[in-house]
């Protein structure tokens, strides 16, 4: 299998020792690269750019919501902002950042020289800028970007201008990229592990990605189907989602959420994997309950396919349907609980230190669990009927997506930066980044629970006066949170350009192959001869 490693470089054998970059220099190196580390780096930077764009949109939303009344944007543009903020953050920022991790780490953690399909890997990445361009271009179409929410419910989508079509094509391309990337990850993990690296010896990060990749392969085509049906309803006279022609608007919601709920775990599981590497390293103690973590992750993934309609309790399902989806949903609390208990027990009686990655991991653990608990509240049909489509839901999923996935990504970036760059970031600045993010995040989103309970609907550009105070606090928090991420950029750039050289093993407790069997920074080509894992 090692024959698939970078073919450009293998043209002449002597090149190995030069640390060459695939034969090209400058921009062509990045366009033509088939090296998993280069591609991982591109994924990471791409997701940071999209994170910044999506973040700017969040700032526009929070500026408009700072006071009741319409001040900054008209309601139509406001809807475009909420829609694009959601789509860009989910598909452009959070999903690619973990694919970046997968590219960098999976080959090193299983002792493989590269990903199984190196050229496909290049193409999986280079699809993304095209999709992102389509998304951004939609703002410049007549009628602007779609203002339908990231869920793109029918039949509102039929009323949109051409921006909707560009968004649909962008989703197609993003889906293609995800499916190709997933096939690559599955093949790599199943076929390219070093001798002795059995599945049950893999670092948990590889396990969570293996399961995530299966979820992606199973659900992205479903999303593609949903948006394609939207496209033909818009232009070719079909009536999939139009009752006048025998269709049903709710059918769209079923198809969308059959994708959408597993998507939640597509976003969360790789983060779980990162946390499962970071917590043991800084506890100087092996992960507690490795096998049960693998089983719990699998159980979550399987259950995620039978709970989708809990996003639709208010559409008017029969009572048996509501009960089934409620019971199935609450069941997810069991394996999720197992994971939280295992992480806490891993810390128990360890020898703990709190460098930035560990701070983010503990922050993740604390606040992701909070998001999980509000998920349990929302799983109960009667309570959800009161809270559905209010700010309570907005608060809930930001605890899962930001305090969950994003915090895990930050933990991972600080953890592996020395391995990637050979340099250390500034620990003090990293800690400041954590604490500011933690404080501002809670300022933005904790108060939104109150807004939702008190009855503020989501996706509105203006609101009744009794919601003003919490909205002001939330907006101020959002501006702080946005500025804090500039500090993050500064820390990373400073680390790359002028950080102190990192030690071979900067983290005492790190024990996966990329730390124990490879120099720091990791060489351009690693494990051309597989290590033997005992």
């Amino acid at each position: 299998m090692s024959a698939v490693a970078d073919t450009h470089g293998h043209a002449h054998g002597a090149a190995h020792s030069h640390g060459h970059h695939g034969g090209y220099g400058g921009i062509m190196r990045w366009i033509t690269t088939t090296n998993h580390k280069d591609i991982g780096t591109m994924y990471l930077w791409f997701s940071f750019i999209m994170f910044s764009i999506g973040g700017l949109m969040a700032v526009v939303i929070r500026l408009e919501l700072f006071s009741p009344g319409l001040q900054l944007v008209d309601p139509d543009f406001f809807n475009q902002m909420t829609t694009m903020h959601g789509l860009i953050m989910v598909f452009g920022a959070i999903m690619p950042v973990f694919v970046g991790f997968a590219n960098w780490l999976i080959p090193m953690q299983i002792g493989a020289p590269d990903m199984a399909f190196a050229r496909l890997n290049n193409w999986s990445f280079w699809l993304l800028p095209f999709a992102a361009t389509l998304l951004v271009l939609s703002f410049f179409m007549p009628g602007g970007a779609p203002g339908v929410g990231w869920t793109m419910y029918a039949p509102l989508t039929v009323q949109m201008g051409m921006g909707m079509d560009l968004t649909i094509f962008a989703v197609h391309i993003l889906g293609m990229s995800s499916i190709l990337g997933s096939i690559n990850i599955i093949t790599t993990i199943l076929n390219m592990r070093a001798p002795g690296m059995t599945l049950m010896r893999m670092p948990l990060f590889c396990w969570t990605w293996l399961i995530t990749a299966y979820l992606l392969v199973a659900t992205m085509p479903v999303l593609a189907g949903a948006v394609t049906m939207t496209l033909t309803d818009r232009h070719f006279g079909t009536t999939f989602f139009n009752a006048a022609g025998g269709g049903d608007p709710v059918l769209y919601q079923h198809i969308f959420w059959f994708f959408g709920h597993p998507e939640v775990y597509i976003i969360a599981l790789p983060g779980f994997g990162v946390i499962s590497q970071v917590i043991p390293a800084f506890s100087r103690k092996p992960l507690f309950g490795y096998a049960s973590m693998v089983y719990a992750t699998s159980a979550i993934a399987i259950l995620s396919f039978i709970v989708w309609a809990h996003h639709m309790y208010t559409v008017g399902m029969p009572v048996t349907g509501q009960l089934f989806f409620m019971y199935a949903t609450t069941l997810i609390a069991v394996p999720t609980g197992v994971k939280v208990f295992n992480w806490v027990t891993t810390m128990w009686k360890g020898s703990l230190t709190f460098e930035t990655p560990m701070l983010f991991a503990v922050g993740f653990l604390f606040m992701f669990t909070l998001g999980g608990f509000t998920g349990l509240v929302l799983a109960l049909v009667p309570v959800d009927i009161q809270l559905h489509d209010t700010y309570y839901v907005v608060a809930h999923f930001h605890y899962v997506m930001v305090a969950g996935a994003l915090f895990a990504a930050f933990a991972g970036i600080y953890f592996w930066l020395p391995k990637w760059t050979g340099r250390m970031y500034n620990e003090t600045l990293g800690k400041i980044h954590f604490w500011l993010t933690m404080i501002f995040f809670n300022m933005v989103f904790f108060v939104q629970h109150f807004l939702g309970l008190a009855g503020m609907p989501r996706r509105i550009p203006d609101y009744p006066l009794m919601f003003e105070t919490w909205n002001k606090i939330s907006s101020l928090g959002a501006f702080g949170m946005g500025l804090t991420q500039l500090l993050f950029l500064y820390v990373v750039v400073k680390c790359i350009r002028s950080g102190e050289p990192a030690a071979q093993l900067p983290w005492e407790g790190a024990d996966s192959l990329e730390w124990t069997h490879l120099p720091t920074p990791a060489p351009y080509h690693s494990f051309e001869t597989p290590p033997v894992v005992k």
Partner: protein
Amino acid sequence: MRGTKVIAALAGFGGLALSGSAQAIAWYFQTPASQLAADIDWLHRLVMWLIVVIFAGVFGAMFYSVYAHRKSKGHKAEQFHENTTVEIIWTVIPAIILVAIAWPVTKVVIAQKDTSAAELTVKVTGYQWKWGYDYLKGEGEGISFLSTLATPRAQIEGAEPKGENYLLEVDNELVVPVGKKVRVITTAADVVHSWWVPAFGAKQDAIPGFLRDTWFRPERTGTYRGQCVELCGKEHGFMPIVVRVVSAEDYTKWVAEFKQKTAKAAEDDTKTLALQDLMQRGEKVYAANCVACHQATGRGTPPAFPPLAGSKVVNGPEEGQIDVVLNGRPNTAMQSFKQLSNAELAAVITFTRNSWGNKASEVQPAEVKARRK
């Protein structure tokens, strides 16, 4: 460029923040006005306490560990990493807790879905962006009206101070008698909307082409307010729901008054009105029903909402425009406005035919009446 704009806006708003807000801070459910809403409140409290206890337990342990098992305190890591008994315990106990709370929750779910034996049935239709109410069965049967946001545009745009019920006030409130079981049948004319009155614990999506139902039994008289909660386009934030719960006698009185008003409107149908009266009344009807899509300028917001200024239909034959307004245009956002009276329709059609540079003949109530199917 954007950066400086954002910073300038921030500085401006920062000053505003200090001025504070006059309204009391809402942070929990509205006071329940029905048994169902009270049950939901109770379930929510039950689950919250459960969560607080588990949360305190788990994170109490974690923070103890953070405090006591630090390397800086010289704590040496133990190397245990597996214990099947523990794993089984923390799988089974949460499962048991879930089964225990499933029972009370299930009872409420079943009660919430039971729309039988209603004493009053009202059909609620979601439109972009207003609600239509049709009293289908029970006292007041046959009553039908549209309910639109009553907050003046000037308040929204900041030209006037905002009133107490800013964005939560309508021209025609849904009126129901206290203590009676009201079944609400929802549907929509264009896109999905969602009808919600928090104090009743009743929320039901309104789906175009389908009928769905929910119910409530208000226990106290008073006015209860909610908002549309499913994104339905540009003015989604501006289509509130207001329900006025009155005593049985007041309800009977209201029904009689409403019927009287309708009878008077029927009289108007046969009158011939002067152009000036039509224009004046038409402007009001336009402001309440048409302006959100077609805009005060008559230019609309294409492509979804075409302009009326210079439109072929508006400047064309009377029958053509009457038909569009009466029946709507299938598969577009243009809905049917047949709930409005003939006089109102004649007025608004005349208004559009003689505004924004349009020049076409006036329309009389009798002509509208003649085209009704």
